[in-house]
C-alpha cells in the first residue's frame, strides 16, 4: 500500500516535468526580445547584447530551463511584463474567486448529477431516464457562455432574483458572496453535470445487474437502501474518476465564465494576460492549473481503496 502510494506520487513527477518543459518553451519561443524591450529604442546592438548577457538570455536552452525550474520549485514564477509585479503575487490576489467558483460548482454538480444518474439507472428506459439522457446531450452541446448568458438573462435581468455579475469576497458576508456565485456555478457546471450524470447512470446500470443487488432485494431491503448504500458505493470508482477528469473542463470553462460574469479570478487574469501577451503570467497560470489538476487526480486515484476495499495495491 505504502509502496503503491509512493510509486503513484513518483509517477506524477515525469508528467509535471513535461508540463514544465512545455510551459518554459512557451516563454522561450515567445515572439519579442525581452533584452531589446528593456534596452529601449535608443539602445545600440552592443547594449542589447550586454543586457542579454546580464539577464543570462544568451545561455543554452537546457541550462536556462534548469534554472527556471529551480526558481519555480522555490515558488518564484517570474515577474509580469505588464505590471512588473511578481506573478505569484498576482495569482495569490486572484485565487479566492476562482477557488470559490470551482468548489461551489463541483459541490452543486455532484449534488445534482449523482441523484440524477441514480434515478435514470433505476428507472432505466422510462421517461425519467430519457429526460436525463436528453439533458446530458444538451449539457454537452450548449457552450458555457451560452448557458451563462441565458441564466443571467432569466434569473438576473428578467426575474431579478440574483445579481447579474460581479463578485463579493467571502469576508463581506456569506450570502452576498454566495449570491454572486450561484449563476456562474450553474453555467460552468452544466457540462460537468451532464458528464457525471451520464457516467453515474452507466455505472449504476452495471452494478444493478449484479447478483448481490438481487440478494439485497430478496432479504427485503428498501429501494433507497439498495440504491444508495449498496449500488452507489460499488459504482463510486468510475464516478469519482470522471469527477476528477472533468475538472479539466471546469478549468477551461472558468476562463469563460469569469469573463461573462465579470469575476476577478484567475480566468480573467489569463484572458488579460493573453490580450497583453504577458507571457510570464500565462506560464504561471497554466503551470498552476495543470499542477492542481494532476494533484486532484492523484488524490482520487489514492481514494479508490477507500471506496472499494477490494482494490489492493
Amino acid at each position, binding site marked *: 500500500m505504502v509502496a503503491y502510494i509512493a510509486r503513484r506520487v513518483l509517477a506524477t513527477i515525469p*508528467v509535471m516535468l513535461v508540463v514544465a518543459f512545455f510551459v518554459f518553451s512557451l516563454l522561450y519561443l*515567445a515572439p519579442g526580445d525581452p533584452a531589446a524591450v528593456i534596452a529601449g529604442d535608443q539602445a545600440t546592438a552592443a547594449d542589447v547584447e550586454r543586457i542579454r548577457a546580464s539577464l543570462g538570455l544568451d545561455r543554452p536552452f537546457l541550462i536556462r530551463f534548469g534554472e527556471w525550474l529551480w526558481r519555480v520549485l522555490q515558488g518564484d514564477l517570474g515577474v509580469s511584463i505588464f505590471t512588473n509585479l511578481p506573478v505569484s503575487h498576482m495569482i495569490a490576489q486572484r485565487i479566492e474567486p476562482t477557488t470559490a467558483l470551482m468548489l461551489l460548482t463541483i459541490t452543486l454538480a455532484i449534488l445534482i448529477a449523482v441523484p440524477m444518474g441514480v434515478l435514470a439507472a433505476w428507472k432505466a428506459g422510462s421517461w425519467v431516464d430519457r429526460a436525463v439522457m436528453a439533458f446530458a*446531450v*444538451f449539457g454537452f452541446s450548449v457552450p458555457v*457562455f451560452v448557458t451563462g448568458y441565458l441564466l443571467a438573462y432569466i434569473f438576473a435581468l428578467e426575474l431579478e432574483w440574483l445579481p447579474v455579475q460581479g463578485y463579493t469576497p467571502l469576508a463581506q458576508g456569506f450570502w452576498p458572496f454566495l449570491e454572486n456565485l450561484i449563476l456562474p456555478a450553474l453555467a460552468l457546471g452544466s457540462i460537468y453535470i451532464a458528464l457525471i450524470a451520464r457516467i453515474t447512470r452507466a455505472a449504476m446500470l452495471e452494478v444493478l445487474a449484479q447478483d448481490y443487488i438481487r440478494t439485497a432485494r430478496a432479504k427485503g431491503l428498501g429501494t433507497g437502501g439498495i440504491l444508495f448504500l449498496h449500488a452507489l458505493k460499488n459504482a463510486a470508482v468510475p464516478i469519482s474518476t470522471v469527477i476528477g477528469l472533468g475538472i479539466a473542463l471546469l478549468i477551461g470553462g472558468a476562463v469563460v465564465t469569469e469573463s461573462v460574469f465579470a469575476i476577478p479570478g484567475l480566468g480573467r487574469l489569463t484572458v488579460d*494576460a493573453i*490580450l497583453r501577451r504577458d507571457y510570464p503570467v500565462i506560464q504561471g497560470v497554466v503551470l498552476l492549473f495543470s499542477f492542481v489538476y494532476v494533484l486532484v487526480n492523484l488524490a482520487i486515484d489514492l481514494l479508490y481503496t477507500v471506496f472499494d476495499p477490494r482494490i489492493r495495491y
Partner: protein
Amino acid sequence: MSADAAMAASPAAVDVSAVEAKRGRIRTVLRRHPTVALGAALLGVMVVIAVFAPFLGTTDPQALAPARRVRPPSAQFWFGTDMLGRDVYSRVIYGTRVSLVVGLSVALLASAAGLLIGLFSGFLRVLDGVVMRIMDGLMSIPPILLAIALMALTRGSVQNVIIAITIAEIPRVSRLVRGVVLSLREQPYVEAAIAAGTTTPLIIWRHILPNTLAPLTVQATYIAASAMITEAILSFIGAGTPPTIPSWGNVMAEGRALWQVAPYIVFFPALFLSVTVLAVNLLGDGLRDALDPRLAKRI
C-alpha cells in the same frame, strides 16, 4: 462502380444480399435512433448555410453603418445590427463557415496525427514509454488552456486556431488508438499473421487499421464538436479568429458589452453554435451505437 466490380468477381447473389443487409442496417439504425436523422438533418442545413452564405439574403458582413447602430431585429435586419451597425444576420450566416471549417479540419488533422502516433506507440515498444509520458504531460494541461497558450505565441488566424486546437486534441486520440492497437495485438488472428511471417506494415494495413477506424470515427465526431466550442471560446476571449473574420465567437465577443440592452447580438450566434454542436454530438452518439455496440452499452 466498386460494387459492380465486386459483383463481377464473386457470386452476384451473395453481394446483393450484403448490400441489402448494409442498407437494412442503416435503415434500422435510423429507425432505432431517430436522433441520428435529426442530427444529420441539422448538420446538413448548417452545411447548406455555410456553402450558400452569399445567396441567403446576406449583405457584406463587414459593412459598417454608424447611422444604424444597435437596431433590434426587424424585417430589414433579421437579427438586428451590432454596435458598429453591421448586420448580425449576415455575420452569423458567414460565421457558419468558420465553425464548420474549424470543426472538420481539427477532426481530420487530430485523427490523422493521433492515428500515426498511436500506431507507432502501439507497435514500437521502445517508443511507447517516452511518447505516452509526453502525452500524459500534455493531457494534464486542460485543452482550452493549452490552446490559449499556443495562440499566445502566434497571430490570430483561422489556420493558427486550427493548429492550436489540433495539438490540444492529439494526446487523447493517440491514447485511444494505442489502446485499440494494444488489445488487437493480443488477438489470435494477429498472432496467426505474425506466426505466418506477415510483415509488420502489412499487419497494420490489413488487421489493425480497419479495426481502429470505427472508434476513431466516433472520436473524430466528438472532436469536431469540441473544436467548434473551443474556437468560439478562443474568439470570445480575443485569442482566436481575428475580428476581421466574422465567427460566432467574435460576434458574441462584440455583443458582450451590450448584452443587457441588446441581448439579440449574443443570442443568435449562441443559438447557431449550440444547434450545430448538438447536431454533431447527436450524429456522434448515433455512430457510436451503430459502429461500436459494446462501447454504446458502457456509456
